[in-house]
Every structure is written in structure tokens, then in C-alpha cells.
């Protein structure tokens, strides 16, 4: 699709509604009478890595799932006029298959017991691109190979998914998402349970995607990683947006301390010049 050929100039940390990225407004979701998301507005500029931050239970995963269209509707049936626009199109109104060609979602823990090879797992990402009755075309296989190359996992193609390490498996899930050739990729804690080298691998892959013009929105637990690798961050707390904008504006003690109940100090990375966060009990 368009992603491969688009030559979008990377937009460095733009706050406010992007002309070409994700723009969601008034997203709410509730279950069993509990409001999990309360009128969340979130934007993610095209060509940038946006981080979705917040304490446990702040609604990060639910927000991503609603944006990805994989969350069942609220059980009280309310949606309060949520609007999820990407590149000018209403995402939630798109037919499912078309949405799956625009948007890919990498969930936090997707596992299988089945004896499926890495290449076959990545080929699943081609399902929205072909007729339900068709097999893999040469194009599908080429796209899967490209996706594996992009996450540096070509050497794993013939391995079985169940035999992979956590970091390898995460890259394969990313490759499966890339095989969908999305213009928007949503990831739920892509660095969870990974060792530090694998975490950096995952974030490098996201950066490479953003450099190709893909809109990247990743829920991250680790504020330190977010400070190092994101252009734009959105901070959630209790189902509401507390702050959104450039890393330097949001990841500051005044914003973080009340949300997390800690004391934050911001240092400067000696080599990259990016903010380094340290925390102590309040």
C-alpha cells in the first residue's frame, strides 16, 4: 500500500492535531458500570513515534484496543460520539478488511500452541489483502519476506514460533503487523518482558517505521524508554488524558509526580542530550 512508497518528511514532535496522522477525540469505554476511558482525545503525528504512557490501570491497553477496533462496544452501549480519524478517514467506520490494510495492532501477549512457522505466522498479516479463498500469492510471500527483513528476522523464517525467545517472538509479531502494510501501527507494550537489548531492537524498528512515514503509537510502561525514544507522548491517568505533547513538555516533574506519586528528577543524557528520568519515593 501507500506506506512503502510514501516519502513523508518526519515530523519532529508536533503537538496538536496532525494533518496526516491519527486524531481521536472523545473516546470513552465502560464495563460493568465502570468508566475505563472517559472522553480521551489522542493524536499521533505521521512519521513520528508516539508513546502512550500512564500508570497501571490508566486505560492504555483499552484505548489502543478501541482505536484498533478490536474492543467489544461498551456494555451500556454508549459511545458518546467518539471520532477516530486517520489520514482523513473515519477508522471505526471503515469495513474491517480495509481497516486491517490501514491499521495493524500488535497486542501485548499473543501466543499459540500450534506448530506454526515464523514465515507462516507473518503470512497471516496478508489475510486482509487477499480473498478468503485464495492461498498465498508470490506478492504475499514477498511482502512477508520484506516484513521479516524489516525486523531483522529473516533468519528465523523456518523456525517454529513456539521455539522462539521473547525478543524474537516480539519481532515476529511486529513482522506480522508489517505484512499488513499498514500506515498506522498500534502496539501494546512492545517492550514488555524483553531484555534491554531486545527492548532497544523493538524501539529501533519503530523508529525505522516512523522514518518511512508510518504513524506509530505504542503504549509504554517504561518512562525512561519513552523519554529516550518517543517524539510525542500522551499521558493517561484514570481514563483521562493528563498531558500530551513533546517529551520535554510532558515528562517533567510537575506533570509526572502527581500522576505516579513519586519524585522525578530529569537529567540529561551525556551522549544524546535527551532527558533521562530518575525516580525516588515521595
Amino acid at each position: 500500500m501507500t506506506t512503502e512508497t510514501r516519502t513523508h518528511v518526519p515530523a519532529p514532535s508536533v503537538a496538536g492535531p496532525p494533518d496526516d496522522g491519527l486524531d481521536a477525540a472523545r473516546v470513552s469505554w465502560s464495563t460493568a458500570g465502570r468508566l475505563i476511558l472517559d472522553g480521551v482525545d489522542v493524536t499521533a503525528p505521521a512519521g513520528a513515534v508516539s508513546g502512550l504512557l500512564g500508570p497501571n490501570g490508566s486505560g492504555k491497553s483499552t484505548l489502543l484496543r478501541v482505536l484498533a477496533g478490536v474492543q467489544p462496544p461498551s456494555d451500556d452501549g454508549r459511545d458518546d460520539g467518539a471520532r477516530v480519524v486517520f489520514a482523513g478517514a473515519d477508522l471505526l467506520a471503515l469495513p474491517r478488511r480495509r481497516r486491517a490494510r490501514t491499521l495493524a495492532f500488535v497486542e501485548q501477549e499473543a501466543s499459540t500452541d500450534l506448530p506454526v512457522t515464523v514465515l507462516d505466522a507473518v503470512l497471516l498479516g496478508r489475510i486482509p489483502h487477499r480473498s478468503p479463498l485464495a492461498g498465498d500469492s508470490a506478492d504475499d510471500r514477498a511482502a512477508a519476506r520484506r516484513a521479516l527483513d524489516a525486523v531483522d528476522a529473516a533468519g528465523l523464517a523456518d523456525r517454529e514460533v513456539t521455539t522462539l525467545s521473547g525478543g524474537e517472538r516480539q519481532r515476529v509479531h511486529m513482522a506480522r503487523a508489517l505484512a499488513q502494510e499498514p500506515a498506522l501501527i498500534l502496539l501494546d507494550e512492545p517492550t514488555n518482558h524483553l531484555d534491554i537489548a531486545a527492548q532497544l531492537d523493538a524501539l529501533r524498528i519503530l523508529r525505522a517505521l516512523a522514518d518511512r512515514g508510518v504513524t506509530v503509537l505504542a503504549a509504554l510502561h517504561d518512562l525512561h524508554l519513552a523519554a529516550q525514544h518517543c517524539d510525542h507522548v500522551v499521558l493517561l491517568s484514570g481514563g483521562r488524558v493528563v498531558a500530551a505533547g513533546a517529551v520535554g513538555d510532558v515528562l517533567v516533574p510537575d506533570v509526572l509526580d502527581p500522576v505516579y506519586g513519586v519524585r522525578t528528577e530529569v537529567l540529561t543524557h551525556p551522549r544524546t542530550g535527551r532527558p533521562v528520568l530518575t525516580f525516588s519515593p515521595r
Partner: protein
Amino acid sequence: MTTAVRRRRAPAVEPVETAATPGARRGAAWWLPVAAVVLVATVLVAVTIGPADLTVADVWRSVATHLGLGGALGLEPLGALPDGMVWELRLPRVLTAAAVGAGLAVCGVVMQSLTRNPLADPYLLGLSSGASLGAVLVLVAGLTVLLPLAAFGGAVAALAAALGLAGAIGTITPTRTVLAGLAVSQLAAAATSFVIFWSATGDSYREILSWLMGSVAGATWTSVAIAGVAVLVLGTLLASTGSVLDAFTFGDTAAAALGVPVARVRWLLLVGVALLTGALVSQSGAIGFVGLILPHAVRMLTGARHRLLLPLSALCGASFLVWADTLARTVFAPREVPVGIVTAAIGAPVFALLLWRGRRIA
């Protein structure tokens, strides 16, 4: 891009694994024509086995004559007795076994994938218990003619109860479906036991037991028609859902993210499986193990992709059940054992072996 994906660690490739499993898989498409040829040969040979010395040529002569091709092919009609043996007794039985085996294997694949449960089989939603209850009720009442109808009705009623229960709790998820099926299944089994305990005597007891174990002994051309049409229509529809079932490999959310309408697909496939299983059970009783083990065995040949797994399971299931039934009617000849005993006797050790060799399927 190049800087971003620069490797820092040595590529983690294990040559042993690469050479072993997927190499076998790549040639797996060849199993399809092989399995088809094996099935045809199985049918022709299985019909000749048993008392009265028949040959494959005899079978061929009888079939050709009945299809009105005898004259054109210059074949002599078979004598009345052997012809009756082939055309009225053994062929319907063998073909019914083939249809039932194919259908159960396909249903087993679909149920296992849909519920992501390696122990799922076509009867998971209480279908066999429901069918058994229906069948036992009419057998006890002496209304044997109504047996297929009652069995089918029981299966569909059990499905409706299971899905209704699962739906009443909330969205139809795999776990809820399995649990609801379990509840319905236990209830129907208790009712069946009660009816047998209360009113079965002598002959009907034996008849009931034989039906509960599964058998194609009484198969007629009507059985072939019912099981065959069900397999050709519903089985083909189910077998064509390979891509959709593939999408469930990493669970419901992953399937939804690939554009699959998860809830609707689950409903449709469960209903399809139930109708097909109900039709098969009405003809053969609840034959166990075929729908559980065949999918696992075939998956070891083909890997988890459904486009090959579904049709190959159908072909293998058909051949397997024909041979199981041939054993059931010959091993203790002239006595017959229910084919369900044979499938369990073969299936259980094979399953154990697969588990031991695969170590990953469960």
C-alpha cells in the same frame, strides 16, 4: 532503514530445526493427491474384505452395472448374491463410514481451531450427549424408525442450549462455549443414564449400547445420501474457511485485527459444525476419537495452516474410519463390535504416541 535494523547480536538460527520440520512441510501439498488415491483404494478394497471371496474386479463390475456403465465397458453383471453383498450391504456401509470419518475430522479441526483447545472434538458442545438422549428415548419407546431424526433433533437441541447458555453469560468466547457445552453435556448424559436405568431391558439395552458406542453396521443407501450430502455441502463449506481459521492462530484479538468479524464467524462455524455433526451422529451414533485425533495426526504432516489441513484431514478421516469399521466387522467375525470401540482402541495409543513425539500440541 539500514542503521535502524543493524544487528548487534549473532543471528539466532538453529540449523537442525530448520532442516527437520519445515522441509517436510514444504512437500506437504503432495499428501493431498496421495490421500485421495489411498481413499479410493481403501473403499474398493474394504468392500472385498469379509466372508464370501470378492475381488476388487467384482466390486468394480457391480458398481459399473448399477451405474449403467456395465454394457458400455463390456462387463458381465455379477451374480445376484455377490452383487447384493457389494451393492446392498458393504458399499453403503463403507461409503457411510467414509463420509462420517471425513465429516468428523473436518469438524474436529474447526472446533480445535475455533476454541483454541487441542482437546476439542466435534462433540464439544454436548452434541453427542444430546443426540444420545434423543436416540435412547426413541429406542426405549421402540420407535427405532425415528432414530436418525431423534438423534439429529437431540444434537441440535443440545447445541441451541449450549450456545444459548454461552450467549446468556455474554459474548461467545471459547471458554464460555466450552463450559456451556460441558454443562449441557453432563445434563443430557445424566438424563440418558436415567432413561436407560429406568426402562431399558434385554434387546433394547444391547441396541442402545451399540448405538452409544457408534456403529455403521445398519448403513443403507439412505445413510450414504444423508451423511454424504451433509459432508459434501457443510463439509466443503467448513473446509473452505482455511484463511479465516488461520487468522485465529494467535487468538481472537489477532483475528479481529486482521479484519475477521470474530463473533459472527464463531457463531456461523459452530452452527455449521453442529449441523454436520448432528447429521453424521444420526447415521452412525457418536463415534469417538476420529474428530479428536485425526486433526492432530494430520497437523504433524502439514503444520498448522488450514488450507491443507482441512481437506487432508477429511481424506485421512474417511480412510481411517473405513478401516476401523472393516476391523470392527471382521476381527471377531461373525460377531461385530461397535466401530467406536475400534477407533478408541487405535486412537488412544496413537494419541499418546503423538503427544510423546510432538510434545508441543498440548
